[in-house]
C-alpha cells in the first residue's frame, strides 16, 4: 500500500538525474531492493506506468535487483545467508549475526538516450 509515494520518489530522482545529464529520454532504471525492505517490484512498475507519462521517464523499464539478507557472524566473522529458520553460522554454529545486506532500497543507475 505504500508503493505509490515510493514510486513518486523514484520518478522524481530519475527525472532530476536525467535532466542533469541532458537526456532526451530514460530507457531503463535499475533499482536495488533488499529482502528486508518492504517494497514490491510489480506494484512499483504498475504505479510507474501510471505516473511517468509526460515525463522524461515515460515508458522506461524498471529493472529490480533483489539483495538477499546476509549476516556476518559475531563470533568468527563468517558471512552467510540465513535461510528460513536456519540462522546458524555454517562455520562455527553461532546463532544470527550483524545484518550486512538486505536493507538496500535505492536507484542505482539509469540508462538514457
Amino acid at each position, binding site marked *: *500500500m*505504500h508503493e505509490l509515494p515510493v514510486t513518486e520518489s523514484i520518478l522524481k530522482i530519475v527525472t532530476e538525474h536525467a535532466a542533469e545529464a541532458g*537526456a532526451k529520454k530514460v530507457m531503463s532504471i535499475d533499482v536495488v531492493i533488499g529482502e528486508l525492505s518492504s517494497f514490491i517490484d510489480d506494484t512499483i512498475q504498475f504505479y510507474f506506468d501510471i505516473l511517468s507519462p509526460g515525463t522524461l521517464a515515460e515508458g522506461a523499464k524498471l529493472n529490480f535487483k533483489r539483495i538477499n539478507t546476509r549476516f556476518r557472524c559475531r563470533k568468527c566473522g563468517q558471512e552467510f545467508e540465513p535461510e528460513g*529458520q536456519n540462522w546458524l553460522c555454517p562455520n562455527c554454529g553461532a546463532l*544470527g549475526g550483524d*545484518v550486512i545486506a538486505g536493507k538496500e532500497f535505492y536507484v542505482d*543507475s539509469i*540508462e538514457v538516450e
Partner: protein
Amino acid sequence: MCEGHDHTHATVQNPLSENKDRRVPVVQNILNANDRAAAENRQHLEEHNITAINIMSSPGSGKTTLLMATIKAMGENGSIGVIEGDVASQVDADKIAETQTPVVQINTGGGCHLDAPMVHSALHALPLDEIKLLFIENVGNLICPVSFDLGQSWKVALISVPEGHDKPYKYPGIFEAVDVVVVTKADLMPYMDFELDTFKELVHGLNPNAPVLVLSAKTGEGMDSWVKWLEEHRV
C-alpha cells in the same frame, strides 16, 4: 568478474559505438525525502527537549493498553504526549484523551505505516512545551513501519505472548531495527506455548544490545522494568 572490471565498462564510453544510449550512475536512497523530513522532526524535538518513542507492533499486541498503563504508572511527572497512528477511527486517541494526556490522532486512510511528514503535522498540533516524553504509536504492522524514520529518539517493538516466539524468523527487520523489545500480555504465558528463552536468543541473534522486557499491562507485572527503561532513556 570483479566489481572493478564492471565499473570500468560502465564509465568508459566506447568511441566506436553507434549506440547513443548511456548509463548514468545515480545511487540515491529512494526514501531520501522521508529521511529529510525525519531529520527536521528530530531537530524540532531536540529543541523542545522531548524524547520521542516510536512504538511498532502487530495490530492487537497491546500498544494502546501499554500506553494507558504507562501514563498511569508515570503520573504527572511523565509529561507524556501521544501521537496515535491508525488506518481509520479515533478509538485509540479517545481512550488516551480520557487520561487528560495531550493526544493527536493521525488517520493514514489505508496507509500501512506512519511517515515523517505525517508526524511533522501532528507535532504542530501538540502543546510541545508541556511534553517531555512523546509516544508515537505506529500503525499496527510488523513490516512497513520499519523502513520509515519518523525522527524518533528510540524505537520499540512490542510482541504479545499469543503471537508466538518464532516471530523474529518471520519478521527479522523489526527486531534488528529497534532499541528495546517488549513482550506484552505476560499474564497469558501459562496458557500459551511461548518459549521466552528461544525468543530472547533469536532477538539477540539479530540485535545483541536490545533488552527484552517482559510485562503485563493488565496485571502490572514487569511494568517497573519498562518505566525504568524509559526513565533511563529520556533526556
